[in-house]
Structure formats: C-alpha cells, structure tokens
C-alpha cells in the first residue's frame, strides 16, 4: 500500500513537471468548452435581415417590427431596390430578407448553410403567421403549425455541445494521457526495471491510473461548472446521478487507455491510437457534430461501439432532460459491458506479456 502511494506521487510529479501535459490536462477542457460554447454554435441568434418595398403604415411595417423584436432577427436596413438587396446579401450584411409584393410575401434566405437557412425560414414564417392570426382570428390559416421545442426551447446549441464536449474531454484526458504514460515507461525501459523489482504489476498499473482518474474528475467538475454558469446549460437532473454516471465513463476511458498501452511499446503509437482511434470516432460518431440518424447504416452500426455516444446520450438525459436512473438503464448497461470487455482484454494482454 505504501508502495502504491509512492508511485502515485511519482506519477503526479511526472505530470506536473511537464508543462505541456499540465496545460493539456487542465486548460484544454476549459478551452474547448469556451470555444464550442461561444465560437462554434449552430444556434440562431440576432440574424441580420433586410426588407424591400416596405410601405409606411402597412402591415409589413408591423411584421418587420415583430421580427426585429424577436431574439432571432435583427433589422439591418430597408433597401430601395432588388439590386441593392442582392448586394447586401453578397456583402454578407444580411443573411435573410423579406420582400413585400402586392399579394404575397417573399422570404429570401442565404442558404450557404442550409440548416440555418431552413431554421430562419421556419422562424420567419412562424412570426408572420402569428401576425396574420392576431390580425384576424376568425380566419384559420390553411396549415396551422405549432412547433413545440422540447427541453431546449430557446434552441441553444450549447445544450447539445456541452454534454458532447464533456464526453470527449474525459475520454481524451483519461485514455490518451494514461496510455501514453504507460507506453512511455515501456519505451524508456523503466517498465522492465519495475517488473523485475518487488513491485506488483497490479500496484504499478493502479498507481499509474489513479492520477489520471483524479485529474479527469477535476476536468469533469470544471466543465460542468463552466457549462452551467458560463454557458447556462441547465442541470435538471440530480447531480449525484450525473457524477456517478460520469465515474463509470471515466473508468471505461481509463481501461481503454490501458488497452491501448498493452498493445504498443511506443508513445507515438499510443498517441496516434488514442488520438485517431478514439477522438475521431467520438467527434464523428457520437452525435456530437452530426446526427447519427442521418448517417449511412454501417456508420450507425459502428457508432454503437463508441462509448462516448452512450455517455453523451445518457448525460443529456440526466442533465438536460432531468430524467432518472430508470431512463438510462440501456446506456448504463452498455457502458458497463464495454468497461468489462476493455478491462478483461487489457489485463489479459498485460499478463501474457510478462510471461
């Protein structure tokens, strides 16, 4: 037991004396939350729009005012000619426009980003429809659509990205750092020396993993706090269950790191395996950036063995939807299964290598 703590101390010294690994471990998660939260967001907020052929005192004026008052649009300017409107689009001044004709209203959207274009159109039609209905409640529109956005009424992208980033960061830190650090001992030859010594291999492995477990917990808390207070992502579920669910995911990530380091003796290979082999699937297949439902079937299948997918799904349910344990049983079971498989495989490989 004493040996164990001596080694934990040694491992922490390795981490803290290496400036870059300290930065990676502690600052990267914060950086990612801020970047994704503020920079890369798919949400719609204050889209600049222009109008053409607006008449004083007309209904059009009222519509424009309604739109301008909503959070989603902001009136840039009124344009005198079709040509000037087009120029404004080209210059990037506006991304949306309303053209009032004699009998109809035309909506023009910049569709370079088709997703946001369709969102803009949907919002604008909603506002316009609402306006006509208020004007003349007796007339029921031919198509009456009422959209209710569940769990994320203001369509905030951060609701989606924060659990995603937490899932990515925890895996990155735990799996990558631990696999590289074990591979380093092998590459340097110190592993052999330690295996010859009195130290038990299990003590060695556990003492190498513990520091990364602690650091990942620091990261878990820092990303949760930042996500909640800075990006205003709600924590609707119980904090305890969110944390416990995350601990399971952390253990799984560490066992993945162990598995990677049992396959290779080189730091570089460990880095590539955890980087390319882990981070990429997480970004592409976890539903963080691209919806899994739209993927080719084979990728949908593949996504099922990406641990982050299940974690992120579960975290969304617990954190944002405020559901309880009974609703994440599937995710829980799958994570447990993956954990058992990874741990058994890596320990088996570790043992055979000693023979």
């Amino acid at each position: 037991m004493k040996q164990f703590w001596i080694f934990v101390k040694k491992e922490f010294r390795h981490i803290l004396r290496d400036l870059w690994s300290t930065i990676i471990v502690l600052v990267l998660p914060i950086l990612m939350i801020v970047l994704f939260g503020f920079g890369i967001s798919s949400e719609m907020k204050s889209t600049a729009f222009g109008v053409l052929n607006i008449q004083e005192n007309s209904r059009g004026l009222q519509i424009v005012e309604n739109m301008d008052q909503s959070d989603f649009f902001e009136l840039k300017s009124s344009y005198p000619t079709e040509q000037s409107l087009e120029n404004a689009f080209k210059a990037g001044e506006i991304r949306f426009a309303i053209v009032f004709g004699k009998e109809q209203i035309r909506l023009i959207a910049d569709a370079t980003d088709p997703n946001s274009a369709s969102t803009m159109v949907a919002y604008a039609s909603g506002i316009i429809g609402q306006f006509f209905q208020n004007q003349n409640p007796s007339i029921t529109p031919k198509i009456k659509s009422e959209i209710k956005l569940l769990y994320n009424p203001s369509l905030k992208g951060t609701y989606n990205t924060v659990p995603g980033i937490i899932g990515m960061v925890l895996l990155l830190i735990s799996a990558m750092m631990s696999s590289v650090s074990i591979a380093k001992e092998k590459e340097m030859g110190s592993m052999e020396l330690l295996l010859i010594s009195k130290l038990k291999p299990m003590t060695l492995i556990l003492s190498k993993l513990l520091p990364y477990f602690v650091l990942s917990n620091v990261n878990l808390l820092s990303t949760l706090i930042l996500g909640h207070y800075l990006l205003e992502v709600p924590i609707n579920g119980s904090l305890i269950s969110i944390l416990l669910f995350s601990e399971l995911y952390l253990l799984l990530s560490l066992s993945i790191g162990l598995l990677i380091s049992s396959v290779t003796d080189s730091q570089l290979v460990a880095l590539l395996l955890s980087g390319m082999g882990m981070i990429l699937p997480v970004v592409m297949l976890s539903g963080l950036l691209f919806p899994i439902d739209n993927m080719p079937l084979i990728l949908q299948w593949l996504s099922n063995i990406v641990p982050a997918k299940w974690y992120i799904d579960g975290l969304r349910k617990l954190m944002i939807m405020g559901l309880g344990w009974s609703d994440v049983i599937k995710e829980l079971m799958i994570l447990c299964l993956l954990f058992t498989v990874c741990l058994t495989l890596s320990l088996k490989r570790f043992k055979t290598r000693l023979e």
Partner: protein
Amino acid sequence: MTKHKAIEVHNLTKRFGAFKAVDDISFEVYAGEIFGFIGANGAGKTTAMRILCGLLKPSEGKAEVAGFNIDNQSHLIKENIGYMSQRFSLYEDLTVEENLRLYGGIYGIPKKELNPRIDEQLQVLNFMDSKKTLVETLPLGWKQKLAFIAATIHRPKIVFLDEPTGGVDPITRRQFWELIYQAADSGITVFVTTHYMDEAEYCDRVSIMADGKIKALNTPKQLKIDFQASSMDGVFDAIAKTSKRSEI
C-alpha cells in the same frame, strides 16, 4: 573465496518458436564474485539474464537465484536482486533524491533507514550537491553511477548489470568499476554483461556465450592461457570466429 553459490543454472533452454535463443546452458555463480557474462549481440545473454531475473519463463531446465527457484519463487527472488540496464537509468524529470527514494520505497525500506543510506552513498560519490538536481541535467556517466546506487539501495544479494557502461567515457568506466568492486567487497554478487573486453579482465570469472551456448567459462587468466591469447579480446575473437549467428 567461499564457494557458496549465488546462482545455479542447470540445462537452461529458451525457445522462441523453432529458434533456440538459449541452448542448454549450465553454470554457477559464487556468492561475492564478479561474474562477467559476455557474448556478441544475439548470442543469447540478454535472454538468459531475463530468465534469471524472472521476466521470462524458461522452456526447459532449472535455475536457482539467491537460493530460490525461478519456477515458483520468483517473488522471493525479486526481493533479493537488483537490476540495472544501459537502456534506462533513472527518471529524467525527477531529482536525484526523488529517484533514489522511489527505488528505496519499492523495496519498503523505512524512511529513517533510507535517508541516511542515500546520503551516505551520495557522499561516497561526491554527489551531495546534486541531491536536488533533476537527473536530465546530469552527464551520462553520473546517471549511470546513480543508477547503480539505485539498483543496490536495498542491499540485494545479487545485482544484475546489463551493459551498464555502454556509451560512457573510459575514465567514468573505470570509476564505475570501482563502484562494482565496492559492492562486491560488501558482499553483493555482481552479474554483469559487457561489450568491452577490457572490462572482462576486471571480472573474477567470465563466461563467453555464442549461438545460445556457453563456449568458455573460467577466470580471465586461465582463459587467456587456454586460448593462447594475450588479452581477453583475443579470447573473444577466437570464440566469435566459430559462431554462426550474430546480430549486426
């Protein structure tokens, strides 16, 4: 010299597939002697050493290290041996003291005992000033000497040195061998592999391996007589000529 045996090897063989890395070797190492284990790369000496240290299991044969059987008492062997390799000496990002404490800690030496032992060893080497220095800033020769201290800090019965002086300048090599003599004087059996034939002269007895077999084993003096050579270099050349395999 007392003829108490520190290592006993009987008909040890290690196969990797059809390849016999170690081919039916038998030898004894007496307690307190400096035993040189010499051979070209690929001769099988590292494999033999790894078996004795408990890192590999032999395909056939028996061996006892420090009085314990390598088959089922490897945990007892581990407590009684020290090991040092050329490849890895010490953790570069830890200080001299931290490294030595780490190795002392592995063997469960209590702090009260460990601290004076570290100071004593550092004083012998005039290293006290560097106690709090990071190992990465030290020259290679120092690192190797410190690695030797680390390998013997728990006062093992036997210390295995795997090419401990590789890449070190001749003066430091000489100093390193003084450390080895000191250890041997204090009763530690030294099992050392080396590339340098002048170092073979410093050993009490030398075994020369080729093709997985031990081709010669005796005192350097007797070997030179047997092979009619003026130096150990000549002895080695005579044996190497007959060997079939060697790695470049």
